[in-house]
């Protein structure tokens, strides 16, 4: 084929320019470490990279959420652990107070300590976070969770419990509201409370009792009325006698699924009540116990009444203890779930990062060898251009 002089020139030049632009592209890739210099270089990769970047950002945000949640759950757990410790101390003190060797004065001292423990519990329940907001008042973080007035203890918050997003499809509960942690504890033995009438003149006292048969137990209110020092009747809420028996100290009395023991010497006319448990808060329980112990007692009847009361309260404290321990376990379970979720997030993160790297990052080994090849190509094109341009018939004229 015939070739024009301009063609020889432009073919050489185009060759060099092409080589140069390829070389520059590889050079930019090497300088930035990016495989893709603009979205158009790899549209699918560009979109995929956007999606993966978002997944990465997201799971990093979930990890940050998880750290926040973890700190809060740790705080809740330590508050509960401290609460458990206080209640155990309360229990020990109560057992001490119930000892016959205690004088009115020493019991009053114990009562004062119990009051202090109530205050400690209150201040635990009114824990604030670093921003001064109440941790245990549900959604209403700006109001003090628990307050005390003439009518007793009052919860000012609500039942709200935040959820935090710690995974793409995973929300975990934040700090529990105070109403759930410190309130709603069934007093007595958890099912019913056994109490002695304040008007009792004998020296019989009743224990906290237990539910012996859940099938039969229906939350009935039963009165145990002594018709003689060794005879009692069981009456239902309409004062109808449903059974009667002869009393012997320490024998258990079974009625409507419940079993209680009365000890000591009750007098005729003495009455003991079996009533369904009521939901109570832990502060009232401890504080009630303190008030109980603060009262001086004289004589056997007083002592028997107080013993009955202490028995019931002690059972209530046990209920509160197991309530707090259960909540502690609940918090622990959430922390474990959170740990697992963080592990999952970490592995998702790693996976996404690897995928992103495959899409975005330059394969240096490949790029460097490509660069060398292109450099060689450009050199060859330049040499060829120079050589060919030297060829002309005019050189020989």
């Amino acid at each position, binding site marked *: 084929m015939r070739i024009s002089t301009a063609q020889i020139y432009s073919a050489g030049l185009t060759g060099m320019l092409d080589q140069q632009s390829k070389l520059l592209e590889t050079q930019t890739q090497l300088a930035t470490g990016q495989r893709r210099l603009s979205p*158009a270089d790899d549209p699918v990769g560009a979109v995929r990279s*956007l999606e993966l970047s978002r997944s990465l950002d997201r799971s990093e945000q979930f990890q940050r959420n998880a750290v926040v949640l973890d700190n809060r759950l740790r705080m809740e757990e330590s508050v509960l652990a401290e609460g458990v410790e206080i209640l155990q101390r309360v229990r020990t003190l109560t057992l001490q107070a119930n000892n016959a060797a205690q004088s009115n004065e020493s019991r009053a001292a114990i009562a004062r300590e119990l009051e202090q423990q109530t205050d400690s519990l209150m201040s635990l329940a009114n824990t604030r976070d670093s921003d001064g907001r109440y941790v245990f008042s549900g959604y209403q973080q700006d109001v003090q969770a628990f307050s005390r007035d003439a009518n007793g203890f009052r919860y000012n918050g609500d039942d709200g419990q935040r959820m935090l997003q710690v995974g793409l499809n995973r929300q975990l509960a934040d700090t529990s509201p105070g109403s759930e942690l410190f309130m709603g504890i069934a007093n007595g033995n958890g099912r019913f409370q056994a109490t002695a009438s304040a008007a009792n003149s004998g020296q019989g006292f009743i224990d906290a009792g237990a539910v012996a048969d859940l099938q039969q137990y229906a939350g009935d209110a039963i009165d145990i009325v002594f018709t003689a020092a060794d005879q009692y009747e069981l009456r239902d809420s309409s004062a109808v006698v449903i059974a009667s028996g002869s009393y012997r100290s320490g024998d258990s009395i079974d009625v409507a699924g419940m079993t209680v023991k009365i000890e000591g010497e009750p007098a005729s006319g003495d009455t003991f009540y079996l009533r369904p448990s009521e939901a109570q808060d832990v502060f009232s329980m401890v504080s009630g116990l303190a008030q109980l112990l603060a009262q001086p007692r004289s004589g056997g009847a007083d002592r028997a009444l107080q013993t009955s009361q202490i028995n019931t309260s002690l059972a209530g404290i046990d209920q509160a203890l197991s309530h707090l321990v259960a909540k502690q376990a609940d918090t622990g379970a959430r922390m474990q779930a959170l740990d697992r979720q963080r592990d999952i997030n970490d592995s998702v993160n790693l996976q996404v990062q690897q995928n992103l790297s495959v899409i975005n990052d330059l394969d240096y080994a490949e790029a460097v060898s490509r660069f060398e090849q292109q450099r060689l190509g450009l050199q060859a094109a330049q040499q060829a251009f120079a050589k060919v341009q030297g060829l002309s018939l005019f050189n020989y004229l």
Partner: protein
Amino acid sequence: MADMLGNALSALVSYQRALATTSHNIANVDTEGYSRQRVDFATRIPQQQGDLSIGSGVKLSDVRRVYDEFSSLQMRNASGSFSQLDSYYQLATQLDNSLSDPELGVSAALSRFYDSVQNLADDPASIPSRQLLLSEADSLSGRFAEFSAQLDGLNKEVNARIQADINDINDLSKELADINALVVEAQGKFGAAPNDLLDQRDLALLKLNDLVSIKTVLQDDGATNVFIGNGQSLVLGEEARPMTTVRSPFGAARLEIAMASSPQSPISEVVSGGSLGAALSFRDGLLDRTTNELGRIATALASSLNEQNAQGLDLNGNPGGAIFAALEPAATAATGNASGAQLTAVVDDVSALNGRNVRLQFDGATWTFSDAASGQPISAWSGSGTPADPFVIDGISLTLDAPAAAGDRFLVTPTAGAAAQLSVVMSNPAQLAAAAATRSGADAANTGAAQISETRIVDASDPNLSASVSIDFISDTTYQLNGSGSFSYTQGADIVINGNAVAITGSPIAGDRFYIEANVGASGDNRNMLAMAAVEDRRILDGGNSSVQNAVNSLVGDIAVATRSAELNRDAQENLLRQTRENVESISGVNLDEEAANLLKYQQAYQAAAQATGIASQLFQSLISAIR
């Protein structure tokens, strides 16, 4: 002897001219559009002497350019296509590059915004977290504004390119008209046009075709007429018809092209090809699509986040206000509409929004809706344009403030301006509604083992949404609502009242009480923020098929694909152009070695002819001396 001298002289003259042509070729080795010229030799008419015919020397029969009509036309077309694809590619690359930085894109800003929503959900009472959310919202709208400014800049560049191309086209038309005049004159005088003039005209046509696709018709008198579009003449014989730019009837920011002679009606839609065609098709295609799509995303984002914020309660216990300014579509009446009626557009349904612009035309009796980019008629619309019965199209309702007149035209750009207008109107971070409107609770004295779920808002518009509701169990299996009725308890089933839904699980006991109440003072509630974080994944666009993030990603993908395919087309066309150019060059290009060889050949022939005159002279001398 006279014969011999005559023959030698004819050769001297002919080879002189041949040498001149060769040196002309050498001189123009680098001249653009030059076709090499060749000389054709022919014998002169022989002298008849008796029955012998004696040769009477040589003459130059023709100096012609080596030129192939077909190859040249092929190159002109290839060059025009390349010019179009290259211009388009340059514009698309600019758009693509504006998206290339992942840290600066809309996608990254969206990501940071939703992270800040999560952040606030972690600690809803925190003012710094609230402030952060607002400032991320601000920077998000800033990204939209900046991107939209870049699109605006591209629009300006398109206008500048159109203007420059029109100027070049007018210059070339003028040049062609001038060359036509010279060609016609030469053809009239000498019967043939000078080769160099024809080369110049071919070059001017090639350059013109690079600017806009042309059709040419060669007249008998040698002039070439040039037409564009669907028959608009640019050059007629010796007359050039200039083109001009006019403002679009639907907005001054948009240049359209027209012939300079009145009525100057726009012919942009019929003109194609070349760099001008590329600028127009880029603007009316990819650029408009991107602008509209970006606006559609902005509209969806603003409306969904505002809507979610309105469902909750802010730190002061009030329903959440708007975070972003509401974005409304633009509807423009064409300048010169007879009625002066104005059209107002309102977005009804974000999920039905479409990236297209819609043109409305009234012929006095019926309305025609068409896609502004393609001109295709649209049949999916309804209504009559009155306030009672507005036009409804693509999720937008359109109302006319006065009756339209025949010939009135309107352009509806549903989302074109939205990205630029996206702005944060909320200034007080306390107004972010992190809390849900209501909360539920269980009475502290409940003895049953039942729990109530959080309230879920099923109808935020219920007027009694925040009214207190009590759910009292009158037995273990039945409950009353607000002290009346008797409903049987189903574990876990939704109890819906006043736009709230709650579910109770576990075993309640007669006397247990649950309640729903206004969520006042709930600075620690994050339910509405969690819902706002979930907006990210909510498929609110394209009839419930894509989320905002999906739409942003598709937009990036669409632009990248368009740029990529523009690049591939351009590269393919460049190869084609290179081949056709080589083809033309191999036919018409000057080869210096060839010319050097010709120089030698003609030089030797000239020298031989000179020798022949010398011999003739010697012969003459011999004859003279013999006689003397």
